[in-house]
């Protein structure tokens, strides 16, 4: 076990990516993820890697597309408005079945919005990143340690399934400092016989492409891709349950909202309220199983979010409308306080919305 080091969340992502074998980073400056780029700019030239500040987020994601086409691990990072710009490239990555790691350190929106933390890109990340039928694997860290762990895991998942993995963090996760252990066993590189590395005159040419003008063929590609997605939904769901064994009320939250919720749950437990937490770590695939189980025993689910209520829709689907699901939220860069969450828990304990 290596010693722990004190790091910012954004820096932990950058260092973990380098440990995971990423030697190519492309990005465009935007608050609050700038430390990722700054760290890469300092480190990459010293280890034979490439850091390049692109002319736009659009160019950055297309540079990612280029490196990924050659089979190498590559990443970019941005924050909400920048991710919107990357949407086009993400769709092309999906259409060409290319692996890549993408970081979104979210800030409040819509539009230019603000620079304070937010979770308002949940829909964008899990459902509507850009045009076409596709998904990304979306991972939601709730500590600096997880920022690093999920970065390493994210590269593995991306390579394994030939798709984009997004780390959906927020301004708080990016900026806060915590001790981190960066002791990883890195899996050997995945074979990528499809990569455009030059034929060396030894094989037929490889083509990386998302164009398919014959609808029957394009349909087939879509069905095949969704078969893969189904397998991911079956095998890759990750979540944490906290004090759910005897819970009568279920709080659910991801990222920073989960940390706030844990404080509120601890306080509620002191006051004798049986409340627990489900924290999804994969937002796509959304871990339906713990919700389905909770719906059989709790009387209310409270979704705590830094947005106007986005994950709550998946929670309602996962609980199959068997219990009321209520929203406890702040938006526009504000974070719910433990007191606000505690109030919501108390209200539910008293009979809530039933």
């Amino acid at each position, binding site marked *: 076990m290596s010693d722990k080091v004190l790091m910012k969340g954004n820096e932990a992502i950058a260092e973990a990516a380098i440990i995971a074998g990423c030697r190519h980073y492309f990005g465009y400056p935007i608050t609050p993820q700038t430390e990722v780029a700054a760290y890469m700019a300092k480190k990459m030239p010293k280890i034979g890697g490439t850091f390049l500040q692109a002319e736009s987020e659009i160019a950055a994601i297309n540079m990612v597309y280029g490196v990924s086409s050659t089979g190498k691990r590559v990443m970019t990072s941005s924050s909400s408005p920048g991710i919107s710009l990357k949407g086009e490239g993400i769709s092309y990555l999906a259409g060409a079945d290319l692996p890549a790691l993408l970081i979104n350190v979210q800030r409040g929106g819509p539009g230019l919005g603000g620079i304070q933390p937010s979770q308002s890109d949940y829909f964008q990340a899990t459902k509507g990143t850009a045009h076409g039928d596709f998904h990304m694997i979306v991972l939601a860290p709730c500590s600096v340690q997880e920022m690093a762990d999920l970065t390493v895991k994210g590269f593995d998942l991306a390579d394994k399934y030939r798709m984009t993995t997004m780390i959906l963090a927020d301004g708080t996760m990016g900026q806060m400092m915590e001790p981190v252990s960066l002791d990883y066993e890195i899996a050997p590189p995945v074979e990528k016989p499809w990569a455009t590395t030059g034929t060396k*005159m030894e094989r037929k*040419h490889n083509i*990386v492409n998302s164009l398919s003008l014959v609808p029957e063929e394009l349909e087939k590609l879509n069905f095949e891709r969704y078969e893969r997605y189904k397998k991911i939904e079956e095998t890759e769901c990750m979540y944490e349950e906290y004090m759910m064994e005897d819970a009568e009320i279920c709080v659910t939250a991801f990222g920073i909202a989960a940390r706030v919720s844990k404080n509120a749950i601890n306080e509620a437990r002191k006051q004798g309220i049986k409340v627990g937490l489900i924290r999804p770590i994969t937002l796509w695939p959304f871990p339906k199983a713990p919700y389905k189980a909770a719906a059989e025993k709790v009387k209310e689910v409270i979704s705590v979010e830094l947005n106007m209520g986005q994950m709550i829709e998946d929670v309602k689907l996962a609980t199959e409308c068997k219990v009321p699901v209520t929203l406890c939220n702040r938006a526009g860069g504000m974070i719910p306080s433990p007191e606000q969450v505690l109030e919501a828990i108390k209200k539910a304990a008293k009979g809530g919305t039933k």
Partner: protein
Amino acid sequence: MVVFEKPKALADVQLHYCPGCTHGIVHRLVAEVIDELGIEGRTIGIAPVGCSVMAYNYFNCDMIEAAHGRAPAVATGVKRSDPENNIVFTYQGDGDLASIGMAETVHAAARNENITIIFINNAIYGMTGGQMAPTSLPGQVTQTSPYGRDTDHCGFPIRVCEMLSTLEGPEYLERVTVNNVKAVKNAKKAIKKAFQNQLDGKGFSLVEVVSTCPTNWGMTPKKALEWIDEKMLPYYPLGVYKDRSAAKEEASK
């Protein structure tokens, strides 16, 4: 003795281009250069969006299809993934390179990215059926300038080589055409230099090829070649717009 045959780097398939479209000539020139330099096994081509979108089927080297206008950014990624080995070219039309992808073009040039760009300027959007391009001539009738391009309303066509030549970055910029045998030979020379520059590590090399679109210009293939001389070349003069190495050599004499 065979004095002329299909180059090996050009795939043995029928091109989808309209009769008389000069895309086919330029494809062949690129393939001939790849053959002559012996680089097919290490070349990675980037196809654009537009008429030449399916160029990925026409070259025997590895190929990547890029989003509209993003080929220079994709090429940047490919080149930087293995700068010692990879020979990277993009093949782009005027809408792709000079309209939607202008930022990617300018910045790749400014960085002197060590890539080769083949830029087809035929003053129109072909694939979508003949709309006004960033390079459509003043007065030119297109589907979206049905009364002729009105420069008061939608501005002037962009001269890409001249514009890029104001940058410190690029190594080599030349405008050529392919409307007669002599011009084709010159075009090949320029394309070969643009690839050789990359092999020599000299940097960003762009060859603009003034080309035809008989279908959307509404002309016979023969008339389209003449139209290049009559209308296109007066606005887009041929020549070398930048050759940094040659200029340096000249200066040191």
